[in-house]
């Protein structure tokens, strides 16, 4: 059954050069709907650059990115987000001065139907829509255990909660594909345990497709169903966790010497 499914995101021969440096070289992989896909590799392997190309921050030098069958190369990030790809950032990027609730409402903003004029004149439709966004956001916050902090300034949250809020904000755009850039970075084991559970739950309860960059091998191996390994911009391995775990090339890339 799974083999016949069309991939939600398919990446073909993706390459990007910055001047003389080839940051990502000829990477290809497919992500199927509801898959938990991992992208790993040592520092500077080009993982975040891949994310930036998928979300439209960088334009690839060569290669193709197809999302739900159509190319998304050259689209601006907001349009890609509107198509259904949401992301989090390696170094957390929250709207610091806004409250936790407001952060998530911004995520829901994509679904707006009212015009700016309605908002400027505060017509009932605008009020209604805003309150709908607010209640949808509250629901999401509850799911991520942040409901009691709804009124806190997001910059005042502790680190782990900021990470969760960022995921909640990304989820608020109701994405078809969620990109998580090192969600467990800087978390203690207990926190990353919780995070793993949340990520799994997203997949199991909502059928959320997730592409994830992670350093913490425990997290990656624990949650991902399929993994791509990058090293110096090139793809060195691809497959289920068990296969990756025993791949000599991966071990070499991580440990720096052949086993």
């Amino acid at each position, binding site marked *: 059954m799974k083999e016949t499914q069309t991939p939600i995101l398919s990446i073909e021969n993706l390459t990007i050069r910055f001047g003389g440096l080839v940051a990502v070289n000829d990477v290809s992989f497919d992500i199927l709907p509801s898959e938990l896909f991992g992208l790993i590799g040592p520092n500077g392997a080009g993982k*975040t650059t891949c994310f930036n190309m998928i979300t439209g*921050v960088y334009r690839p030098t060569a290669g193709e990115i197809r999302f739900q069958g159509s190319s998304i190369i050259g689209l601006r990030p907001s349009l890609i987000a509107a198509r259904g790809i949401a992301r989090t950032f390696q170094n957390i990027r929250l709207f610091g001065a806004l409250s936790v609730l407001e952060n998530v409402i911004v995520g829901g903003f994509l679904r707006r139907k009212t015009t700016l004029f309605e908002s400027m004149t505060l017509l009932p439709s605008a009020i209604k829509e805003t309150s709908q966004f607010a209640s949808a956001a509250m629901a999401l916050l509850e799911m991520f255990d942040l409901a009691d902090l709804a009124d806190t300034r997001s910059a005042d949250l502790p680190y782990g909660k900021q990470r969760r809020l960022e995921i909640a904000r990304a989820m608020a755009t109701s994405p078809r594909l969620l990109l998580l850039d090192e969600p467990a970075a800087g978390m203690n084991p207990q926190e990353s345990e919780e995070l793993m559970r949340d990520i799994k739950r997203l997949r199991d309860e909502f059928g959320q497709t997730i592409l994830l960059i992670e350093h913490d091998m425990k997290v990656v191996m624990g949650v991902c169903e399929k993994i791509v390994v990058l090293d110096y911009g090139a793809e060195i391995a691809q497959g289920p966790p068990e296969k990756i775990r025993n791949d000599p090339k991966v071990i070499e890339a991580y440990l720096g010497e052949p086993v």
Partner: protein
Amino acid sequence: MLATLSFEGLAQQFIYGIQLGAIYALIALGYTMVYGVLKLINFAHGDVYMVGAYLAYYTCSVWLAGVAVEPHLMLVIMLLVSMCGCALLGLLIERIAYRPLRSAPRISVLITAIGVSLFIEYAGKLFFQTSPQPSIKESVNVFKDQIHLGRLEIAQSALIVLITTVVLMCLLWYFVTRTAMGRAMRAVSHDFNTAALMGISVDKVITITFLIGSALAGAGGMMQATSVGTPLSTFYGLMPGVKAFVAAVLGGIGNIPGAVTGAMIMAMAETAVKAFGYSNYTDAVAFIILIGILLLRPGGLFGAVTEKV
């Protein structure tokens, strides 16, 4: 309505352009160096230039007015006083206004810079003579005679300004590329935090940068005021400052040769506008160039754009 220009006319205008460009370059260097290390547009830089001009005026007309000094020596003294005074002022500005804001958002720093600029302009009015506005006496400028090159005329002072500028720039170039402090400066401008981690005393580098940049602006102020002999006011540096900033952006801000090139281009463009009979739009031209360059090539002519997510 284009004024008809002969070849001599054009060559003559070209010379005026270079002279103006030399002054812009001196100011632009300060902008570009400070931006390089601090990523801060030091709005007060034009006002430092103004103070340089005033110091030159006070040196020759007030402090040394009664002393019989050989005229050439007087010019050297004026230059040194302006440079030292401005270096000191730059140091003070950095110490009082910018250092406490090292980690503040950039907009706050920008506003602070505007505040400092306004402060120098208006507080300067309390100390400097503004009414009637002073101007440097003609007798101070011993290089006012002309050199005739065919039908072209070059004022000796223009030549002196150019030579001094080139010498100062060569010194700067040597300093930045050949000395340890210069290397540290480049390191800081490349990556502030890493440089700090590598054991470079960032504060010291910034201090030196402000020192040199301000001294150059002071030299520019002294030379412009002496050769043109214009009445001084505390707003004397406003427009040159803005134009020099545009020059720095044009050449790619943070880039020293770029600043010089940018200054020359700016001055040429301005002179060309005047030469073609549209002198009433001169001040607009600087900004039109700026907007054009920022839209087409935000990094400037020699700069590169890098953006990290």
